[in-house]
C-alpha cells in the first residue's frame, strides 16, 4: 500500500462514474463547490470532469491562499526586500504574483532584491542562522495546513535565540472563508461543499458541522486523489437527493473528528486571531486570519519593520472577486485570455496554477471549445 496509485485506479474510476450516473436525479443540477485549490488541480490534472454527468457542475472555490492574498500584502514583502534589504524567503507559489508598480517578487529580484525560494519555513530559519548579519523574513501564506509549520519555525527561531528572523504572517482560516461564501449573494446557489483534504487532517471534521447545521449545506471531506474526489461527489449527491445536510468524511485514512491536536496547540501558542483581514475577492472578513501573539512580537515582521498595511484595489476589469465566490466563471471576465493570461496575469486567479482562471485557461477552454468531437478516445 503506497496510498497514491491505488487511489488513481482507472477501473475503480469507471465504477464510481457509473454509480454517480445512476445516482443523479433526472432534471436536477448539482452545483458543488470544491473549496480547495488542490482539488481544483486534481480535477483538472486527471480529467475528473469527463467522468461526471453534465448535471454535476463543479465550482472552484477560494481555497487558494495565493489567489486570496491582497496585492498590498505582496507589496509589503517586496518593500521589505527592496527598501529594507532583507533576505525575503517565500514559497515558489508567490514569486510571480503581480503586485503594484508592475512588480512581482521575481521582478523585484531583477532589481536587486534578495528574494529566495524555500520549500519549508525551516529553510528560512536556517538562512537566518547562517547569516546573522542579515535580516531574514519569511512570507508565510496558507490555510490551516501550512500554519503549523510556521508555528514550529517561530518556536525554533526562539529556541535558538535568533534575533534576525521574522514572519510576515498571512495565514488564513477555511471555515471563515466558507461562511463568507455562503453569506454572499451566490451562496444560496451552492448545493454542497467538497471539503479540503489536508486542511482537514489538521482541523478535523468537526468544524464543518456548522455548515450542515446552520446553512443546511452538505459537506463531504475528500482525500487528495481523484477517486477520493469522485466518492465525495457521490456522497454529496446522495445527501442532496435525500434532503440531508451532514458532514461526510471520505478521507478517513487521515482525517479524524478532532484533527491533529498537537498541531492545533502549537498554532494556538504562537498565533492569535486578527479582528479582521482583507481577502482578495471576498473583502473584509472578521476573525478570518492570524497574526503573531504579543509574546512573539519580536518575530513579527509587520511590527519589526513598522510596515503600513495599504489596501490596493484590483484592476478595474478584474473579476477575480466574483470568480472566487463562485458567482462568475473565468470566461465571463472581460480580460480573460486577452489582457490577462498566464504569461501576463492581471489577477491572482490567473497566477496560481490552481486558480480558477489559470485552470480554465489550461484545461477548461479546451473543453468549452467542444474538443470532445475531435477526440478519438471520447467515451
Amino acid at each position, binding site marked *: 500500500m503506497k496510498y*497514491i496509485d491505488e487511489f*488513481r485506479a*482507472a477501473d475503480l*474510476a*469507471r465504477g464510481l*462514474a457509473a454509480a454517480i450516473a445512476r445516482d443523479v436525479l433526472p432534471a436536477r443540477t448539482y452545483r458543488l463547490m470544491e473549496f480547495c*485549490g*488542490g482539488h481544483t488541480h486534481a480535477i*483538472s*490534472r*486527471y*480529467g*475528473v*470532469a*469527463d*467522468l461526471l454527468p453534465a448535471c454535476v457542475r463543479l465550482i472552484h472555490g477560494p481555497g*487558494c*491562499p*495565493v489567489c486570496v492574498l491582497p496585492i498590498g500584502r505582496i507589496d509589503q514583502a517586496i518593500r521589505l526586500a527592496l527598501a529594507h534589504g532583507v533576505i525575503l524567503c517565500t*514559497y*515558489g*507559489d508567490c*514569486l*510571480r504574483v503581480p503586485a503594484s508598480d508592475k512588480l512581482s517578487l521575481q521582478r523585484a529580484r531583477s532589481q536587486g532584491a534578495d528574494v*529566495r*525560494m*524555500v*520549500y519549508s519555513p525551516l*529553510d528560512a530559519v536556517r538562512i537566518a542562522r547562517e547569516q546573522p548579519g542579515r535580516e531574514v523574513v519569511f512570507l508565510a501564506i*496558507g490555510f490551516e495546513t*501550512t500554519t503549523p509549520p510556521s508555528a514550529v519555525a517561530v518556536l525554533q527561531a526562539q529556541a535558538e535565540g535568533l534575533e534576525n528572523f521574522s514572519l510576515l504572517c498571512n495565514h488564513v482560516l477555511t471555515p471563515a472563508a466558507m461562511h463568507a461564501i455562503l453569506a454572499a449573494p451566490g451562496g444560496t446557489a451552492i448545493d454542497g461543499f467538497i471539503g479540503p483534504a489536508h486542511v482537514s487532517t489538521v482541523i478535523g471534521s468537526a468544524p464543518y458541522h456548522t455548515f450542515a447545521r446552520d446553512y443546511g449545506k452538505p459537506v463531504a471531506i475528500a482525500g487528495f486523489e*481523484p477517486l477520493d474526489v469522485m466518492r465525495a461527489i457521490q456522497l454529496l449527491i446522495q445527501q442532496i437527493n435525500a434532503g440531508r445536510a451532514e458532514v461526510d468524511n471520505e478521507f478517513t485514512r487521515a482525517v479524524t473528528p478532532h484533527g491533529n491536536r498537537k498541531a492545533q496547540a502549537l498554532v494556538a501558542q504562537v498565533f492569535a486571531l486578527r479582528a479582521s483581514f482583507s481577502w482578495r475577492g471576498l473583502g473584509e472578513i472578521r476573525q478570518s486570519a492570524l497574526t503573531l501573539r504579543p509574546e512573539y512580537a519580536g518575530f513579527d515582521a509587520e511590527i519589526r519593520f513598522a510596515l503600513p498595511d495599504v489596501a490596493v484595489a484590483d484592476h478595474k476589469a478584474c473579476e477575480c472577486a466574483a470568480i472566487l465566490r463562485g458567482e462568475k466563471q473565468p470566461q465571463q471576465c472581460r480580460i480573460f485570455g486577452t489582457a490577462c*493570461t*498566464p*504569461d501576463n*496575469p492581471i489577477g491572482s486567479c490567473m497566477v*496560481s*496554477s*490552481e486558480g480558477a482562471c489559470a485552470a480554465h*485557461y*489550461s*484545461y477548461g*477552454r*479546451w*473543453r468549452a*471549445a467542444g*474538443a470532445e468531437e*475531435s*477526440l*478519438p*478516445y471520447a467515451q
Partner: protein
Amino acid sequence: MPNEYAASLNLLSDQVELNHGAGGRAMQQLISQVFARELGNEFLAQGDDGARLPAACGRLVMATDAHVVSPLFFPGGDIGSLAVHGTLNDVAMLGARPTYLAAAFILEEGFPLADLTRIAASMGRAARAAGVPVVTADTKVVERGKADGVFITTTGVGVLVDGVEISGSNARPGDAVLVSGPIGDHGMAIMSVRENLSFAAPIVSDSAALHGLIADLLAAVPQLHVLRDPTRGGVAATLNEIAQQSGVGIVLDEAAIPVRPAVVAACELLGLDPLNIANEGRVLVFCPAADAARALAALQAHPLGREAALIGEVIADPRHFVQMRTRFGGRRMIDWLAGDALPRIC
C-alpha cells in the same frame, strides 16, 4: 620557446583574472594550458583565430546555443558537456550529420581554474565521444559579478542527409508521435542540486549527443516528418510549438509516456509535472503512422533509445490543442507553462 620564462598556471588553486582575457601572454597561457590541452585537435592546433575546414559534401546547416545553466555541475554532466551535446543535438534535429563545433567562453573574474579545467575536460570528452571536434574557440573575461562563473556559447555546423525534409511544420494528421526515452531526468537532476531543494535522489541528467541515434533512425525511416528535442519547457512546450507550427492537434496517451519512478516521485514532492521538465538527451519523433513500428525498432536498437515509446498521434484540430488521455480515464489539455516550472506548496 615563448613561454620558457613564464610560470605555469596553477590549475589547482589559481583563479581566472581579467588579464586572462586581455589578449596578451596570460591569455595565451590560459588557452594553451586549459583549452588547447583539453579540446585539442588538428584544427585548434592551426593556432589561428578561425579554422580552415575541408569542403563540405552537401548542404550545410548551422545551429548555435548559449548555455547559462546553474548549477554548473550536476549529476550526469556539467555546463561543458551540456554545451557540446545541446548544439550537436540542434544540428541533428535538422536531419544533419554534425561535423564541427565552435565554442566561446565568457569567464567571470575569480572563477577557479580547477573548475574551468574540469569543464573544459568534460567538453573535450564529450566532443571526442561524439566524433565532432571543437575547431575554434574564443574566451573573454568579465568583472566579478557579471557572469555566473562561466557562460558558454557553442555553434555547430553539419551536413544535411540527402532526401531528408524535416521541419516542425511537417506534422500531418495521422502521424505517430514517439519519444526516445524517459522524460524529466535532466530538469529534476538540476533541481536535486539547487539550493533549498536538496534531496538524495538517484536522478541523473540524460544529457547526451543524439546524432548517432538520429542517423540510425533516418536510415530506417528517411521520410520522417519532425524531429525536435524537448529541452526547456519540456515535452509540453515542444509539442505545443509543433502543433502551432504545423497547424494540427496532438493527442497523447499518458500511460504510454515513459517516466522514471524517481522522477515521478520528485515531481510529486515539488508539485511539478514531468511534461514541463527539461530534457537534454531525448528526441520527439513524428512520422507517418505506417512507419511507426520501424521507427520505434530503430530507436530501441540504439543504446540511447532503449526505452523509446509510441506516445500519441496527430489529429486535425483547427485550435491546435495538445490533449492527453489520462491514466485515470479522463482527458486534459497539455498547455505550455508561463515561465519556468516552479515548485509549489499549494
